[in-house]
């Protein structure tokens, strides 16, 4: 024993046991709950044949629903970028009474069940609601039961993703670079635009990806406020539900598969963009 300790390389440290057991459990768990079910999604549409899948997806209702889900998610996440940055900035950089309370409310959309958020937002934004009534009276805008209502619900759902990815980066960044820029004569907007914002860009992109991925598939918080009119306010997940109710399993799976592949492609593009950004900064 003492001899092995004396010769002491890392090769003599006993490996941590339990790989076989834990890896076996993990593979069974991932395989049964995630991999096999998603494989079913990838296989099922082709029961229609390639032509059948194309025909099923060529339905103008599908294009409208996919366009709405991805478009509304994109707009809502875009709206959330400045809002999330503002909230993260206030939490990390400012000191004011109520800062901790503000910090505490950020995670509300994570904690509130989606159906609860859905009916609450509908009540608020309906033409007779707390926010809906003034918007209607002053601007003549109806938010609930329109595409604007869908965007509003997705803004609610996506906001914490942006705040919580930007916040730690902003905290770690410190103020040295800003201070240096100011010392070198940069105005405050210059320092923010050329020093702070570029440093936060990768985090903003990560947050964008997370919020977007969540918003595209969102169902519970959208369904009550959407109005659900085919071709106008019908989101893609709802179309899946409708096709299932008509026992069109393969057609439902085709829409689901298209949704997943589209969002993975977008997430991959975001990932590549982020890598390019990182390389550019180096």
């Amino acid at each position, binding site marked *: 024993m003492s001899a092995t300790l004396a010769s002491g390389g890392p090769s003599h*440290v006993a490996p*941590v*046991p*339990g*790989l076989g057991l*834990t890896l076996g*459990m*993990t593979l069974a*768990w*991932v395989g049964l*709950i*995630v*991999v096999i*079910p*998603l494989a*079913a*999604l990838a296989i099922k549409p082709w029961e229609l044949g390639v032509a059948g899948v194309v025909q099923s997806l060529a339905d103008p209702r599908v294009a409208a629903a996919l366009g709405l889900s991805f478009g509304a998610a994109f707009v809502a996440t875009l709206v959330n970028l400045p*809002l999330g940055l*503002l*909230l993260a*900035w*206030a939490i990390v950089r*400012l000191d*004011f009474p*109520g*800062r901790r309370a*503000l910090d505490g*409310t950020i*995670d*509300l959309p994570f*904690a*509130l*069940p*989606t*159906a*609860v*958020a859905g*009916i*609450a937002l509908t009540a608020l934004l309906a033409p007779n609601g*707390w926010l809906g009534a003034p918007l209607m009276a002053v601007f003549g805008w109806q938010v609930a039961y329109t595409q604007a209502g869908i965007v509003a619900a997705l*803004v609610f759902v996506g906001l914490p993703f942006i705040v919580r990815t930007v916040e730690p980066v902003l905290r770690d960044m410190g103020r040295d670079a800003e*201070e240096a820029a*100011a010392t070198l004569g940069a105005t*405050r907007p210059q320092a923010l635009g050329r020093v702070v914002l570029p440093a936060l860009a990768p985090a903003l992109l990560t947050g964008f990806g997370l919020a977007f*991925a969540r918003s*595209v*598939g969102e*169902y*519970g918080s959208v369904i*009550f406020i959407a109005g659900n009119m085919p071709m106008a306010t019908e989101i*893609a*997940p709802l179309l*899946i*539900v409708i096709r*299932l109710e008509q026992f069109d*399993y393969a057609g*439902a799976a085709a829409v689901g598969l298209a949704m*997943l592949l589209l969002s*993975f492609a977008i*997430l991959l593009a975001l990932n590549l963009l982020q890598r390019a950004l990182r390389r550019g900064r180096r």
Partner: protein
Amino acid sequence: MSARFRPAHADAPWATLLVAGAAVLVAILLLALPLAAVFVEALRRGLPVAMAAIVEEDSLAAMRLTLLVAAITVPVNLVGGVAAAWAVAKCEFPGKRLLVTLIELPFSVSPVIAGLVFVLIFGAQGWFGGWLQAHDIQVIFALPGLVLATLFVTFPFVARTVMPLMQEQGRDEEEAAATLGASGFQTFWRVTLPNVKWALLAGVLLCNARAMGEFGAVSVVSGHIRGETNTMPLHVEILYNEYQFAGAFAVAALLALLGLITLAAKTMLERAGRRHSRSAT
């Protein structure tokens, strides 16, 4: 310190006030108001009406079902998540990154798709639909379907909170324990678990909150039979669609309370975790 000028990077007081005010306004309009609306709408017709909606037969059945589904799914994802975290953080094997990607995958899948995949497998026209029907076993529109769909959507919570912490802590302590002759289970119970217990609890809480609050995935596999396959969020939907708004918001308020308690407990656990890691170093 007090004699110093305002540092060059600091903002004028009016700018600070403006930004703080804007942030608070956004938080109130976007985050606090929806929460307030739930409770105000629930109490609009008085507390007795709200209470009556909560203790009504179908609502109690929904609560029992929600608790049952969570009681089955949370332990499964707890054990799976901890096993995965151990394998990834403490051992070496090829394909680790792919495994981690697969574990996090359910977070970027629509809840409706999470329900759909199990209908494709176990539904009447699904892969095993005929066989299940022949043997009189019901998965979809019954408890097993609700459990499977909930397992999928709550899948990553525990693994994701525990795995980064276990990786950060490295494997020195476990290797030392193994060298001293401890078995894998002894090492886990006496060395690893005490180091990650707060994060583990936070993961379980989040997993539980999502399991109890899930709507989209269970909506697809539930069949919406009142008093039988309706969970609490689905019961909210039924009441709402029947224009029983006070009742819908009363049950919703109960779910919102669950969310608020989860949030508060999570914050406390994170603080405990930070204290723990500070005292350890």
